[in-house]
């Protein structure tokens, strides 16, 4: 608001005051606001204020061809777009009975895990920045960029890859791609101790984040918390293991958990997950040379494709939590209804409001970011 447009309003005397966190704020990965009412440094109440990124994704999808929506869905979560493409494709494949080639499944997992690593690197920096430490942000973004290089090589797009389509993936990997990904994983693994020294063993950061924004397991389940935020409360639920899709049941990996349910635990879970994702990628890289065959099942002319009548609820594990698509087809060229169950819809609204209330002003931004919410998932 410009000063000339400001009109003073009188309020009854109060020791309370309001502060706006957002809609542009380092505490969240996108445009989203949290209106906080404070008494001194203590948060009395909080109101999540979304809608700044509303583009009507779900409604838009009803007006576009099945295949066109592949270009739309990654935009629902910019930092981790691959699960969006894969989950949407899985739903269509489920409805139309498409058999995805084995090689395509492994390639999808490789992308999913690389995307998860990229999202977690982004998260470390963002979380640290909310406590006033900016070096991990630059490190995280720079290292994430190396992953985006590989995505660019694979798909031509750095952020929105639009590589996974119903039936498989658009094309096979380029020559030498696995070697370059392997070198990248070596580099990232070598960098982890440096992240540990800078961030995870940083006593000031530990002091700032330990015991802050605590949520217990029962509350987490009642409020619909999923993903790393749920695993930080001690419950090792992960869609990849508990309701496996693609080839996750053939892979050897662990589900890291923490017990305290605080900001610190949420960060630690993601740090451990990053290692597990590297482990998964290595297994995929080792297996892929022996898995031949096509990378895409034949589909009808995508510009005149009538997906059979049916519905599907498909879920995957994104870096934010359980991501699901409910897709309903009436046999037309376009979906009748697509509903996106983004994990952030729970985390950034009901969970955030409750978690922040009673907390400290200094911790609001940290709690916001620690939930790793993606505002477009709320505004979908």
């Amino acid at each position, binding site marked *: 608001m410009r*000063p000339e447009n400001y009109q003073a309003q009188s309020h009854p005397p109060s020791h309370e*005051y*309001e*502060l706006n966190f957002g809609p542009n*704020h*380092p*505490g969240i990965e996108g445009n989203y606001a949290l209106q906080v009412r404070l008494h001194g*440094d203590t948060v009395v109440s909080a109101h999540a204020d979304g809608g700044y990124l509303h583009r009507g994704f779900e409604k838009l999808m009803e007006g576009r061809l099945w295949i066109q929506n592949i270009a739309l869905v990654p935009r629902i979560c910019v930092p981790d777009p691959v699960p969006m493409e894969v989950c949407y494709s899985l739903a269509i494949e489920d409805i139309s009975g498409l058999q995805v080639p084995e090689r395509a499944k492994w390639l999808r997992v490789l992308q999913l895990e690389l995307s998860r690593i990229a999202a977690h690197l982004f998260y470390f920096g963002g979380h*640290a*920045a*909310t*406590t*006033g*430490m*900016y*070096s991990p*942000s*630059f*490190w995280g973004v*720079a290292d994430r960029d190396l992953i985006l290089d590989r995505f660019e090589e694979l798909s031509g797009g750095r952020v929105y890859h639009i590589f996974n389509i119903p039936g498989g993936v658009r094309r096979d990997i380029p020559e030498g791609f696995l070697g370059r990904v392997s070198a990248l994983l070596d580099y990232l693994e070598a960098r982890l101790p440096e992240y540990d020294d*800078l961030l995870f063993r*940083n006593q*000031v*950061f530990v*002091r*700032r984040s330990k015991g802050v924004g605590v949520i217990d397991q029962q509350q987490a389940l009642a409020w619909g918390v999923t993903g790393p935020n749920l695993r930080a409360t001690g419950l090792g639920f992960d869609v990849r293991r508990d309701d496996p899709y693609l080839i996750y049941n053939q892979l050897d990996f662990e589900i890291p958990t923490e017990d305290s349910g605080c900001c610190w635990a949420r960060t630690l879970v993601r740090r451990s997950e990053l290692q597990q994702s590297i482990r998964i990628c290595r297994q995929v890289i080792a297996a892929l040379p022996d898995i031949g065959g096509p990378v895409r099942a034949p589909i009808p002319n995508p510009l005149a494709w009538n997906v059979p009548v049916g519905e599907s609820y498909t879920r995957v594990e994104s870096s934010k939590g359980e991501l699901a698509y409910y897709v309903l087809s009436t046999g037309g060229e376009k979906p009748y209804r697509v509903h996106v169950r983004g994990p952030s819809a729970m985390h950034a609204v009901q969970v955030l409001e409750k978690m922040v209330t009673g907390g*400290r*002003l*200094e911790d*609001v*931004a*940290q709690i916001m970011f620690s939930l790793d919410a993606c505002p477009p998932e709320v505004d979908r």
Partner: protein
Amino acid sequence: MSTTHLLIELVLMPLVAFVVGLAMLLMLRKIGARLQRRVGPPLLQPLFDVIKLYSKRTQVSHGLLHEAGIVVAVGAYVAIETLVPVPGMNGIAEKGGLILLSYLMMVPSLGLALGVGQCANPNGSIGLSRAMTAMLAYDIPFMLVVFGVAWQFQTTNLVELVAVQQAGGIATWGIVENPLLAIAGLFGLQAMLGKQPFEIYVAPAEIATGPMVEMGGKFLGGLFVMQSFQFYTAGVLYTTMFLGGGENWFTFLIKIFVVVAIPLSVAFMFPRYRTEDMVRLVWKWPVILALLGLVVAVQ
């Protein structure tokens, strides 16, 4: 010293402080960039920033105190620069001394308080209250250090302080004679510069840069200039008290840049404490060290 000579020094000293301070701002950004694996800004970027801010067409003033506050803050530093001896120029340092300087160094924060207070922005007010709390926190170890140094060298006169240390060589430098006070002084320096982990009053993610939230154009330019003076003053004061001042400009610049580089480097490796944690820390270790140093000085 002739009046003309004195006048030249009084103009030159703040001018030198401003230029060196800008170079320190560049150093801050370069150190940050290297630690964060970036290239960092070009050589003249701090100067371009000042010019850009002062030439902005939008200059939103919240009233007389808003404007006066910045003038007081920058003005205080201009006065301070004439009170700290540098190689070849003593200005009016003979007339001042550590006690006067300690008082004067509080004035910029108070000027800022005046200016921010009139903006009536809650983020600014919270930042301000945190800045005042921080000042209260670091002033205790700082004053203990000042008393310790004064006792150690039996003088509060900065010119004499430098002369004693330079006459006796490195063995008589404050950092050698009383390392406890020197360490406590470094702690105080970190807090005084408001750098992490003591950066509680800017806190962009919490209070939208606090005192700076309503500052733009020439007001922000004023704060920028103030910060360059602040870096320079902190470096010079520490060098004067503990590193024998400047024998010549070459060694003097090396000393003050090294002194300022320490807190700036540390800043990029830590988050910020909460306010109460900051106060607790600053009132604990630096105060204990300074008290021990004071005991050593008295003996």
